[in-house]
């Protein structure tokens, strides 16, 4: 028995996850301590308990059962997503919640899990070939259906996460780089064009370099490049034609923190928080920036500032190491797993985690635009914590079943 456990349980990932949850709880406690908002801490504690149980359950679900359940769960969660648009509760401008008394549920978080499962199931089918147009479209639809529904809420941050999950998974499933470029470059150009002319030009330059490195066919390169330029320019053109207040809406869409306190302010303050932490930090509950005031809703998207200020470089780097460990270790599992399904599920979860970490920590450090995306396992938010722990459960499950075909 002892042997079975050490053989099949990935203690490294399990312990890293638990440590990150504990760091998150401590940070939320600190961030809300001064305001007497222990409510946040208590709720997160309850959710962490629920999440732990859910994680263990998912971990031990039989491999075949999980595969069989993938499609039904996906369809059920999409129905939830439609239901929330009709019956949901509006919180901070987004209709993304089901309210049950004081607890709320956000279906879009759980769709992340089922979407990964469905996509993995589809792509692991031997008959599926991504170079066939029909198969590619189905794979895209599995992700784009929830994306469209989530954009309607509207919750652009979460929608971006789905796209950032799709591309690596397609790549892992064997899509050619040309195919990926056709998908990525117009989308990247459209988003970059909204942020301004310089980001747009950077995207174009990156595209040219990629063509050069990949020694891509000249005709195909030219077509992809022209489409990308066309999309970018028309986005800029349409944006320019909009009334100022409509432009403002788009700006706020891309940059929700800009309103009403200003993203510039948040980023200054989060940089001050991180920087002032120094090497060893100011000590638990001693972070003067942290105590609720300088960064609005710090316990959600800006949670990383808290350990960074109170535990300095030591605390900041510990969190990065724990995340990096989970991600690198999981990629390793994915590359050795015997079943294509297990491999793809693992990479789906890895991609979602990476997208969250990249956007969130990048934003908090002031090197990425401010997009409202929480940090896995640390940020306050019940549905998000629960869905993240479900995904860790999947990682652990895939590890147990890595030798299954």
């Amino acid at each position: 028995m002892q042997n079975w456990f050490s053989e099949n349980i990935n203690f490294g990932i399990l312990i890293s996850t638990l440590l990150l949850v504990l760091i998150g709880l401590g940070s939320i406690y600190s961030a809300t301590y001064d305001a007497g908002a222990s409510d946040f801490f208590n709720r997160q504690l309850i959710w962490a308990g629920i999440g732990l149980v859910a994680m263990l359950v998912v971990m031990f679900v039989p491999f075949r059962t999980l595969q069989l359940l993938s499609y039904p769960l996906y369809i059920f969660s999409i129905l939830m997503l439609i239901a929330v648009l009709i019956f949901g509760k509006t919180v901070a401008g987004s209709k993304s919640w089901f309210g049950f008394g004081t607890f709320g549920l956000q279906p879009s978080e759980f769709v992340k899990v089922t979407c990964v499962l469905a996509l993995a199931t589809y792509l692991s089918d031997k008959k599926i070939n991504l170079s066939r147009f029909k198969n590619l479209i189905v794979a895209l639809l599995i992700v784009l259906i929830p994306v469209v529904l989530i954009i309607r809420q509207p919750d652009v941050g979460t929608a971006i996460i789905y796209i950032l999950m799709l591309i690596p998974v397609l790549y892992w499933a064997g899509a050619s780089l040309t195919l990926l470029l056709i998908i990525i470059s117009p989308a990247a150009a459209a988003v970059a064009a909204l942020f301004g002319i310089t980001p747009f030009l950077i995207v174009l330059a990156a595209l040219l370099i990629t063509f050069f490195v990949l020694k891509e066919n000249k005709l195909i390169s030219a077509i992809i490049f022209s489409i990308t330029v066309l999309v970018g320019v028309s986005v800029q053109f349409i944006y320019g034609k909009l009334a100022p207040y409509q432009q403002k809406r788009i700006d706020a869409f891309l940059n929700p923190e800009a309103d009403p306190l200003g993203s510039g302010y948040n980023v200054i303050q989060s940089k001050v928080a991180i920087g002032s932490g120094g090497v060893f930090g100011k000590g638990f509950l001693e972070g003067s920036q942290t105590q609720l005031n300088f960064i609005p809703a710090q316990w959600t998207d800006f949670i990383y500032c808290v350990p960074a200020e109170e535990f300095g470089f030591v605390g900041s780097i510990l969190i990065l190491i724990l995340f990096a460990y989970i991600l690198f270790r999981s990629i390793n599992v994915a590359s050795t797993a015997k079943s294509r399904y297990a491999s793809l599920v693992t990479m789906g979860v890895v991609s979602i985690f990476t997208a969250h970490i990249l956007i969130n920590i990048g934003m908090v450090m002031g090197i990425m635009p401010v997009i409202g995306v929480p940090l896995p396992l640390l940020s306050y938010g019940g549905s998000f914590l629960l869905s993240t722990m479900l995904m860790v459960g999947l990682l652990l499950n895939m590890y147990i079943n890595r030798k299954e075909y």
Partner: protein
Amino acid sequence: MTENVTYHSRKNVFYVILGIVFLVFLGRLIQLQFLYSEKYGKMSSENAIRNVAVAPLRGYMYDRNGILVVDNRPAYNVTVTPVEFENKNLELLTEILKMEKGEVRERIEKGKKYNRFSPVKIKRDVDFQTLSFVEEYSGQLKGVEYQFEPKRYYPTKAHGSHLLGYIKEITESQLQKLGEFYRQGDIIGASGLEAGYEKYLRGKKGFELITVDAEGKIIGNYNDGKSDIQPVEGDDLELTLDIKVQALAESLLSDKRGAVVAIDPNDGGIIALVSKPDFNPELLSGVTPLNVWQQLNTDPTKPLFNRATLTNYPPGSTFKMLLALAALQEGIIDENWRVNCRGSFTFGNKVFKDMHVHGPTNVVEAIQRSCNVFFYQLMLKTGLPTWSRYGKQFGFGTPTGIDILEENSGLLPSEEYYNRRYGKGRWTQGYLVSLGIGQGELGVSPLQLAAYAMVLANEGKYYKPHVVDKIKEKENKKNIKIQTEMRQINLKKEVWKSVREGLYRAVNVSGGTGASARVPGINVAGKTGTAQNPHGKDHAWFIGFAPYENPKIAICVLVENVGYGGVFAAPIAGLCIEQFLYGEIIRNKLNQPKLILPKTETEQIRD
């Protein structure tokens, strides 16, 4: 196995990308926490950049002629930043501010709980002397500053207290409920238009990033103010109000208790809405001294109570037209149907009185002379269900939906109501007789009666009463015209004609009860009413409209506990109509004989 080989090469791509991401993060951490940690540490310990909210100007309000009725003027608040404030200075501060020590301490504690780095307002609208003291002791009083905040100012003679409303400091429970936009110490609309249009009037807060030195002194704006967010002024309201009529009505009721509601019969716009006694809204803009609050709340005349929309009194004879309209429209009677009035009416063992012996009277004459006996009989003939159905059509028993939030639905009894109240079969027709003359279990507000006068004036168009005509949005530079809601009460042309003729005669033909509402050069139509009141003298009512041919104003006047409607309410209505239609009071210039008011005033007489 080939699969794992491809995975292997792809794995390296992922390793490289993730590696780059984490290396960038590591580099940034080293940059922030090693290289710049001193700079950021200093900024943090000095709390070098402070985020100060800049209060926007609250939206202005203009009357229908473009006269500014609600304005802003500058005021200064003294604030304390809790984290910087030293408790040993508490005494000095309270002395300068002339406040109770406990109150100052409590305010600082409250602010500390919310955000100890953010300035909390200690005293609003301080005088110049206090301000100069604060300035003088600024070296000693760390964390004590002052900030500019606009205050409400009312440039006209009118108070408009219940209509325009007042503002107050946000309460803790409101703060928890409304969240987001508001902070402790913010101002919020508490009643009237200020509350109803809070969302528009409040504007958008600005934020200034202010750099301060180690002593907490302000050095200047961070980044030359480029990172500041400018406040957006609140949206202006263009009202249907005529502030001169409002002021006149207020002065006419100055020593009385009562209400005036005047309404434009062409769109339902409120011309004036007065409730007396009232209060000076300027006293309630911001922090209201405790003694002022106590005085307003314990005053037995209830100055905070909006009599124009919240009273619930029987309408008296002003309700007779409703019965007449119902009976004529349903064909229960025609214009020639007569009742021989002998001065009283006996039903069962009860005697219902009238003021005069009117003799044979038809419907037009009955309205003109306010014959009670006619309407006692007509009520029995028409019956409760029909009467109640028409009452509902005219908006009685339901709130009008006016845009100043507080209003009463009133009481319009139906068979159901009596069954519930007395039990089925346990009430008789006798209960109904007095409803015919607007007495008994019946309650209306002056606003509802004014709306009813409007419908009589325009022959059936019920416009939803409203005060705001247009919202001038500041941010998008758009004007939002408030859509007027209208429903048509369809009655036969002759029916309206008869009833309106009765109203015309009631004011203009001798023997009419509303003669004192006359206005030189204009034909006024109207009806007086006197409501029985078990607690004292009767309440005087008048409703009317003018000009008769082409109505531009409909009005309802209520004066509480004075007696006769024709004596006390009708002249007020006449003057308001005159002011509205001429833009001034002309009768004094015309050298006309003064109005002669009837001198008799007998308790049991119903006009």
